[in-house]
């Protein structure tokens, strides 16, 4: 590990604990529960992936952990300290690019430290290291609109990493990228994390992506959101995205997770529709019989 990479690692910090989290929206009387009694722990320095069908409230959980919103009930602890608002210890990389459109790649990367009053020269080394690391040294003067989708994602990773957060929260960061770029980004991000370990909470709907990245999978259940199952992904690292499903263990995990997810997806799909719910009941009976 180089000196800059050491600077980037955030060892043994960033444990996330959720205790009996409830979140409902709307005025008290008509409130709809989105999250109901959700508890889990994301261990420090490990890669936790939260997977579930779309619409189960994963993004809501992320906003709570990030501190953008407050839970209706329950506590969220980061390294034992309760979350009261957004903080530098945990940074979110969103679904779509949230780069500042009026800043160049370089200005985006420098934004966090400069906004906190650090000098440009004090973070220069780290900024250069990161720009090189994400392969954007040649695009430092470009505005986000002049970058490709994959480049934007990498610029955003660099912008988050320069703040050296204890926790990286990634909410479907590679969604919307084409399959090729996505695969490259995954390999790339996995390598980045192996070089400089830190606590990661990664949200996705893609099982291959989840198993490739995860130390531990949280399979999220249907609304109101709860953790349906925790699966340890005990595959050796470094992993190779192209080769990972040649491994039997990986496939066993995939099948286990998929069967859970299938059930949840059916429930999410049927959410609110009597006809769809009836269909699922009938389908289950046929499968059972």
């Amino acid at each position, binding site marked *: 590990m180089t000196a800059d990479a050491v600077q980037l690692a955030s060892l043994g910090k960033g444990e996330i604990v959720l205790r009996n989290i409830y979140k409902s929206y709307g005025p008290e009387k008509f409130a709809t529960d989105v999250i109901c009694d959700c508890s889990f722990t994301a261990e420090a320095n490990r890669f936790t992936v939260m997977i579930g069908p779309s619409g189960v409230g994963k993004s809501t959980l992320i906003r709570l952990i*990030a*501190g*953008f919103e407050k839970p209706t009930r329950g506590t969220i602890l980061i390294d034992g300290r309760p979350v009261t608002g*957004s*903080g*530098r210890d*945990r*940074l*979110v990389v*969103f679904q779509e690019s*949230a780069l*500042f*459109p*009026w*800043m160049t790649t370089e200005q985006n990367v420098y*934004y*966090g430290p400069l*906004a*906190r009053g650090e000098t440009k020269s004090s973070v220069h080394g780290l900024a250069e290291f990161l720009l090189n690391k994400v*392969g954007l040294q*040649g695009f430092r003067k*470009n*505005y*986000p*609109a*002049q*970058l*490709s*989708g*994959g*480049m934007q994602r990498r610029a955003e990773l660099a912008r988050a990493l320069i*703040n050296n957060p204890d926790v990286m929260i990634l909410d479907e960061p590679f969604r919307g990228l*084409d399959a*090729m*770029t996505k695969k*490259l980004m995954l390999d790339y991000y996995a390598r980045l994390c192996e070089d400089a370990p830190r606590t990661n909470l990664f949200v996705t709907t893609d099982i291959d992506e989840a198993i490739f990245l995860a130390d531990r999978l949280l399979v999220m259940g249907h609304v109101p959101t709860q953790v349906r199952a925790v699966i340890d992904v005990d595959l050796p690292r470094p992993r190779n995205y192209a080769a990972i499903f040649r491994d039997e263990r990986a496939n066993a995990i995939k099948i286990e997770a998929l069967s859970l997810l299938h059930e949840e997806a059916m429930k999410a799909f049927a959410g609110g529709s009597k006809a769809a719910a009836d269909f699922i009941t009938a389908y289950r009976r046929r499968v059972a019989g």
Partner: protein
Amino acid sequence: MMSLPGTLAMPSANPERQWHRFSPRVLLDPSARRAVIAVAAVCIFWQLGATSRGWLGFSLPVIGAIPAPDAVAAAWVKLIHDPGYWQSWEQSFLRVALGFAAATSVGVPFGLALATNSTFRGFAFPVFELLRPIPPLAWVPAAIIFWPTQELSIDFVIFLGGFYTMVLNVLGGAETIDARLIQAARSMGASRWNIFRRLILPGVLPSIGVGMEVAIGITWEVVVAAEMISGGGSGSATSSSGGLGFFIWNSYVGGSYPNIIVGMISIGIAGYLSSAVVRRCVARLTPWLRRPR
């Protein structure tokens, strides 16, 4: 390095499209050529229509009643040596500049305050919305009464013309700023002031630009009408001191019809020039919006 075909957009230097740098090559540019052709076609059509009595035997409706381009050109040539004509330009330009500057410098902070402070918005927005439908020209009589000089009342009316547009654009622009940008900045530990200066302000700049482009057009509309209504401004209402609006009105009263057209075209040119200046300033302020061509 991944650079997938079609996804990587880099600015490319294409000299043919750099229309703002004037050179004789501009005439090779298709859009400039089309502009010249269009203006020439309008002039020919106008000349034919205006002289229709001579070659058709009867005057075409509307167009047959206006002075022909050659008469207008002759009147213009005479006016070029008349300092009074240039003073009209100067006067109108000064009024527009003053009113526009006031509308921008009051409208932008007012719009930002409305967008960022909900208490202020609660108080100020209803009043703003109540006053907004009143056309600037409806203010002319009242403005003449409550401003000490007629000049100030004209400036005030011009200011109103640009002000509402500026405020609405700033307000609309601030509302389109992505909340995730603010969240991202906040979680990186940025102060409120830093978020305002580095995110809100540049975030509304494009809308300020749009507001300015619209406002400069409106101020030209308003200045001309205000000059006509008020009789040219501070007491000394001669054709040389009233601005282009009064120049047109005075030409009408004095019966020099070609001069009316000269005045109208002058306003067209003046408006075009000031819009072009504003557009260039805006483009310079928002470099991230420059699309690679």
